[in-house]
């Protein structure tokens, strides 16, 4: 019964965090070892839970592993209990999260050693000054991600979610301060990291506020935050009866669902709160891989997965919640993909592709393709972690992020290059990598629902639009990914010095790449249209109180879709080849796409959203707050002026007035009474003179007398009692 130990899965990395912070923080190797050992232990335990879950099969969906033994927050007659909740998708996450985390931990042991050249010209590799702290943070992060996955109610989920936000903040800002001996970062980096960290935390905080509001309203209307209760249709129906309507014509469920979706928008970097994620690339690359690609941002998707019944319920009873989710997702997928085209930073391209892919997942969930969306979440985590780690290896090796200073690197870094290609093709959706299968399923669902309706339903324009947006996004994805490949690994080196400096990474860095690449290649076969094992596991058990999903047979529509999506991907890649591969870009040559003119300028400036309501961080470390923030700042200064001059001024006025009054008062003297009585008693001395001769000064003498006396008293007592 491994499931009873589920809560120990997050506990282990948390213990590692505590141990590193309290005990081993001064020993880099030991700290890394503690972190890795803890994650290995957690991995083993969670694989245990995962296997136990697999052995339950589809049964698990109806009867998930559940227990809530820890009383956490009592109020009135109610108590919110904490515990664990593992359903099929949770089990799958328990497989994915520790695996990716372990790979990233191992990778980090090497990545956080920096090469630098000392004053004598000798190259050195030395640990980052905050090496141990790095492992502490990512251990805490992993603990919280695992806690989030296993949590049994929304509050517990929220706590893990927020602490992850903190970890993200700390890790983005990992290089935001430096001591006098730290050479590996410069002032511009410090400035950028500082701005990016705050930007990330505050932007997601906005979403968290919405999420928290939604959660509290859910608690108030539903009376519980337990997932068990949330997935109980009878309990959900009571929600409609509770509070009064918030606005005329709007019911609570849709409000709550959209507020919770607000959390996802911020955490998963969806339009319009996506602005923090590209800047978050200032953190060390393993962090980007871990937090800003594979796990934390997908926590937002996981939230929508957890809240899926609520969304459905809201959609059915009170408003278009699902459609909004789908539209935001699809729009973001397209929107981010366009920006991704115009980025030169190797990590930022990946960042925008992350935003775009998360949009994909949301679109899938929004159109009801629950299983496909979930599956894309899993596969995306693997190949995106792979891509980030590969990009990190490149950066670590040649010391720049700028793709225009790279080129031809596959000759210098074959393993990194090949694995990167695997990841990139998976991202594009090239047969038969995992990305193909998962993305294809999403498109298939949209296509099937949109263009080939069931009997009795008309063609759905909304779904057609979604499908088109996703298809265009897929094309753009292939385009910018191809652009990245051609600029980085193929073609000619554009910066010869950097190229000469480049070298294959140490084994601790390429081994995780290889493992992740293996998963990227094979994971897709878990859910192919012919043999949808994942679908059977997740979707067919009357999941979350919903009716079971039905998987369509492999039919011509599916085949068509496979061909179409392959065609889209290949055509995107072909365009990229035409622009960047056919005639490799030379050093100093502008980007061929710059010919787009004004459109290109829009894309490079990311639609000027940072200038509107965000916080624009420049390459040199300076930053300009956006319009909205300037307004808040002005209001803040107004408040401070008001406080100092008006509110406090009134108080001081009152004080001044009373001081005038106080001048009218006098003061009173006090008398001190003198008098001392002395009394001496010489008589006492006389008496003492007479008595003192009895004192022999020998203590044993006294004791003997005392004893005799005691015996005498005893005898007297005895005599009296005898008479």
């Amino acid at each position, binding site marked *: 019964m491994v499931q009873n130990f589920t809560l120990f899965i997050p506990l282990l990395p948390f213990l590692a965090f505590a141990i590193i*912070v309290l005990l081993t923080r001064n020993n880099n190797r030991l700290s890394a070892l503690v972190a890795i050992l803890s994650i290995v232990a957690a991995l083993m335990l969670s694989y245990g839970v995962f296997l136990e879950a697999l052995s339950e099969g589809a049964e698990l969906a109806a009867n998930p592993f559940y227990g809530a033994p*820890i*009383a*956490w*927050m*009592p*109020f*009135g*007659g*109610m108590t919110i209990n904490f515990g664990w909740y593992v359903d099929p998708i949770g089990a799958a996450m328990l497989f994915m999260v520790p695996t990716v985390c372990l790979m990233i931990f191992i990778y980090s042991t090497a990545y956080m050693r920096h090469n630098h050249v000392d004053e004598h010209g000798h190259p050195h590799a030395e640990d980052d*000054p*905050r090496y141990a702290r790095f492992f502490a943070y990512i251990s805490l992060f992993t603990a919280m991600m695992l806690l989030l996955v296993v949590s049994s109610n929304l*509050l517990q989920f*929220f*706590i893990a*979610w*927020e*602490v992850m*936000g*903190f970890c993200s*903040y*700390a890790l983005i*800002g990992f290089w*935001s*301060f*430096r*001591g*006098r001996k*730290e050479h590996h970062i410069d*002032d511009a980096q*410090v*400035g950028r990291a*500082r701005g990016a*960290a*705050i930007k990330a*935390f*505050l932007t997601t*905080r*906005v979403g968290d*506020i919405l999420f*928290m*509001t939604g959660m*509290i*309203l859910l*608690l*108030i209307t539903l*009376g519980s935050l337990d997932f068990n209760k949330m997935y109980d249709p009878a309990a959900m129906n009571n929600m409609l009866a509770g*509070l009064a309507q*918030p606005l005329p014509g709007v019911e609570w469920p849709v409000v709550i669902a959209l507020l919770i979706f607000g959390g996802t928008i911020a955490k998963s970097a969806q339009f319009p709160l996506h602005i923090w994620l590209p800047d978050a690339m200032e953190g060390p690359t393993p962090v980007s891989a871990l937090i800003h690609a594979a796990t934390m941002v997908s926590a937002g998707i996981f939230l929508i997965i957890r809240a899926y019944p609520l969304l459905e319920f809201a959609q059915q009873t009170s408003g278009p919640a699902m459609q909004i989710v789908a539209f935001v997702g699809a729009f973001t997928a397209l929107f981010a993909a366009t920006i991704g085209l115009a980025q030169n930073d190797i990590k930022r391209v990946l960042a925008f592709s992350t935003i775009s892919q998360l949009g994909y997942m949301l679109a899938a969930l929004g159109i009801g393709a629950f299983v496909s969306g979930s599956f894309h979440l899993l596969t995306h985590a693997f190949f995106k972690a792979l891509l980030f780690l590969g990009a990190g290896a490149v950066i670590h090796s040649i010391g720049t992020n700028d793709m225009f200073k790279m080129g031809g690197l596959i000759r210098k870094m074959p393993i990194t290059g090949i694995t990167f290609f695997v990841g990139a093709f998976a991202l594009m959706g090239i047969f038969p990598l995992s990305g193909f299968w998962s993305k294809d399923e999403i498109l298939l669902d949209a296509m099937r629902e949109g263009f080939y309706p069931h009997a009795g339903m008309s063609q759905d324009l909304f779904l057609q639009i979604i499908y088109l947006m996703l298809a265009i996004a897929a094309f753009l994805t292939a385009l910018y990914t191809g652009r990245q490949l051609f600029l980085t690994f193929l073609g000619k080196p554009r910066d010869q010095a950097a190229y000469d400096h480049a070298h294959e990474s140490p084994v601790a860095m390429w081994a995780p790449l290889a493992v992740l690449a293996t998963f990227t290649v094979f994971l897709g076969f878990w859910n192919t249209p012919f043999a949808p094992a994942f679908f059977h596991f997740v979707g067919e058990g009357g999941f979350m109180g919903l009716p079971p999903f039905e998987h369509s047979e492999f039919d011509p529509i599916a085949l068509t879709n496979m061909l179409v999506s392959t065609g889209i991907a290949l055509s995107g890649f072909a365009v990229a080849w035409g622009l960047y591969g056919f005639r490799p870009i030379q050093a100093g040559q502008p980007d061929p796409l710059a010919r787009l003119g004004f459109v290109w300028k829009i894309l490079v400036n990311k639609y000027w959203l940072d200038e509107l309501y965000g916080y624009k961080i420049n390459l040199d470390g300076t930053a300009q707050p956006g319009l909205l923030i300037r307004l808040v700042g002005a*209001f*803040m*200064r107004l*408040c*401070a002026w008001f*406080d100092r001059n008006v*509110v*406090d001024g009134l*108080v001081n006025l009152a*004080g001044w007035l*009373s001081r005038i009054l106080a001048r009218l008062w006098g003061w009173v003297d006090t008398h001190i009474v003198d008098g001392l009585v002395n009394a001496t008693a010489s008589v006492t001395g006389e008496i003492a003179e007479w008595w003192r001769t009895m004192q022999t000064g020998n203590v044993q003498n006294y004791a003997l007398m005392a004893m005799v006396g005691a015996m005498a008293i005893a005898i007297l007592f005895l005599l009296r009692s005898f008479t």
Partner: protein
Amino acid sequence: MIPYLSLITFIPLLGAIIILFLPNDKAIKQFAIAWSIIPLVLATVAWATLSSWAPPYNFVYNACGVTIDSASAGYTFGECAPWISTLGIQYHLGADGLSMPLIWLTTLLTTLGLFYSAKVIQNRVKEFFALFLLLEVGMLGVFVSLDLFLFYVFWEIGLVPMYFLIGIWGHDTDRPQYAAIKFFMYTLAGSVFMLLGIIALYLYSSPNTFDMTLLAANQANMPFSKDVLISSLAFLGFFLAFSIKMPLFPFHTWLPDAHTAAPTAGSVILAGILLKLGGYGFFRILLPIFPQVSQQWAFWIGVLAVISIVYGALVAMAQTDFKRLVAYSSVNHMGFVILGFAAAAALTAEQMQNPHYINNGASAINGAVLAMFSHGVITGGLFFLVGMLYERTHTRELALFGGFGSQIPVYGALLLLTSFASLGLPGLAGFVGEFMVMNGAYSTLTLLAFIAVWGIVFTAAYFLWKIIQKILLGNVSEQWAKLPDLKGYEILTLAPLAVLMFAIGLFPNWILDTINTASIAILEYMKRM
């Protein structure tokens, strides 16, 4: 039955007297620290005893002729003796889940404050330590007394030592005399209104009494509750006193001056405990004794609370002085406490019949009390941290700092922890209270709650932008190249607070269990309106 509360309250007084006779500074310091541990231990034992009587209580509170059964109140440790019998004034002490955590916090922060001051305070040592212990008497007295007159006496006792602490040991650059007088006069003005309120309650109660438990238990039948004017005026008197002490916008301006001027330990106590006297009064007196008036004014009090939250955060953001910023953060955080009060008070009579609303009301009260407790812990810690930095750099100007995260990493870590606890990161102390308050507030004051919740974003903003970024991040300038990290005694001062932040954040049940009993009791009183 051991008279825990009398012992806890008066042992510091005895200590203050003994200090007057001690010969040298070292002895005074060691004695004061050791002595202050006694009430801490007693309070711990008392709390443990209280929490070991898990609800439902199997006892009946019986003191001062008041018999309260287990259903309606959680008072324990009752002590009673006639004091001024012609007026029916009694020496009536008692504690419940509302006061017990605050009592414990008072004793803890006093010990820590003394411990820290022993290293820092070098002039007029005897007076400082004696006054500090006297201050503890005043604060503890407020928390334990169940007689309004006694309450008032202790309330005023606490003022005097604080006045001297600010005036004598304040930093000369911060106009300590001005701040001390402002603090004293402002608070005194408020408490005069409270005295009027107390007298009004006495005159308009039948039988005439100062006993809080009687007033609360029988308020529905008391003459004052039938007379809207009298009860509103009395309510206003109490409200003014408490909201000045809290402080609630717009009565908060004494606070930044007093906090900034006070010596470190004084600021800690001021923020950690003295502010809580007001909050305590809200829940101990206003809610049970004036449920109707509270209900009528709940929305407007909620408005003030929301202004405190948002406005306090914005003004804090505009500060350039580290200590003033932390001081304004108290305004911001205390707003949540009052919002919790308003949320609970806003429950209407028919909502009282619905257990669902009762639970959310209890959530608001629990949250407010826990927010007070954790604010004491966190802001206490923050003021310690301010003081420690000031001891090193002799400036509090935020613009002069930077890069300390790598220069003094232990300080950095503790500041990071405390700041995040303060801005309400889940898993640390601040969040639980805020969450529960918001839970209560959303159920009765939905709109206000939705505005208040944005205060959390601003709170995060000023902590991240003003404190963490300005102090910890960036490059270390040459000026601070030799800045030493925290010493052992400083870490020892902060360690209990850090542990508490985690203990509350990770497992709040142990403290909420205690508070919840009191919340249920208060709601039970309110039901009788």
